[in-house]
């Protein structure tokens, strides 16, 4: 009976998410870097990424016009503010709706970040590199 009930229960997928992919590069050598990354969304209590050694990070955007993150790269903090448009999209009658975004501009502090390039301003459910973050290499860095 339990098997039949379980088999008959319809399971629907969650709505897809449009996430912005940021990749870290060495500002001197232009090669990909893998710093220890911690990310906190301004206004949130929980961390998006906690001490992860990674060459890139996926950043969700808010429904407002701006999204602000504090990002620690090898324990050095920078803030990044993304100004964007939000576009509502329809997925299906079972999963409902999701949002896509168009990046308009980016502001950031220069503690560890040297420069930033928007590669693809459209943040869609097909995740691809949206921004290149050029960061200063650490003095004793081997990257």
């Amino acid at each position, binding site marked *: 009976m339990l098997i039949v009930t379980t088999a008959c229960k*319809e399971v*629907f997928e*969650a*709505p897809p*998410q449009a996430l912005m992919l940021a990749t870290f590069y060495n500002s001197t050598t232009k090669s990909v870097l893998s710093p220890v990354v911690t990310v906190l*969304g301004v206004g*949130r209590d*929980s961390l*998006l990424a906690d001490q992860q050694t990674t060459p890139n990070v996926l950043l*969700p*955007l*808010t*429904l407002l016009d701006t*999204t602000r993150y504090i990002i620690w790269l090898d324990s050095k903090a920078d803030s990044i503010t993304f100004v964007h448009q939000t576009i*509502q999209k*329809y997925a299906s*009658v*079972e*999963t*409902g*709706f*999701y*949002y896509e975004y168009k990046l308009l501009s980016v502001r950031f502090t220069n503690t560890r970040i040297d420069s930033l390039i928007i590669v693809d301003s459209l943040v869609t459910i097909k995740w691809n590199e949206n921004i290149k973050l050029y960061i200063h290499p650490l003095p004793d860095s081997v990257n």
Partner: protein
Amino acid sequence: MKILSFTFILCLIASISFGQAEPKKKYKPKRTDQYIHMKGIRFGMDVTRPFQDLWTKGNRYGNEFSADMEIWPNLFPVFETGYEVFKIKTSYVDYSSNGSYSRIGIDYNLLQAHTEKDKDVFFIGLRYGFTVANQQVNNYTIGSYWGQQEGSFGNQSYFAHWSEIVFGIKGQLFNNFYMGWTIRGKMKLSKIGLEFPPIYFIPGYGKAEKGFNLDFTYSVYYNIPWDFRKSAGKKKPEVRKGIKVQKK
């Protein structure tokens, strides 16, 4: 080489003789039942509409009624009308749609009656269907790192129309009571009214995103045996053993 030449000549002769063969004349015997089989109007109710959610996604149900009459021998103008509701509720969206629809068309009976009492029909037909409906997204939920966002879309009205090619049977169970099924191939003509969110369900048609929908209906009918021709005082053709005799 000789064999090859022989084969070639044989093929040539065969193709010439095939080309010259007299085309077979298609002989189609004339119908002998060119008379009105069914007097009066036949009203029907589709018994499958209330139970559609047994074989469709979500909760789909409704009612459909029909009326047809044999205006000309073997030709049955048909009017069908109904009401349908579609609801689906998942963890992420609560959607509902409802509306009434109508179809007008004509059926042609392919089955030749042997006696006047033989009233079963096997028909093919065409329909034009249209609906005025509305849909609501009562609630939707989008979750992300930034929190859960909820929203809704209010009542949105739309119009849609489509064409159908149908075939089926209607068999007389007993005096004036009929039963029969119909297979329907539905082709969407257009839908007008909504930009966002898109129309998901068209009452009477089905999924709006599909250009072609296949459907099955099963109905019970009752023929009100009111001879409107007699009432109108028109000349009524007399039938004797399937042969029409015009009274002078």
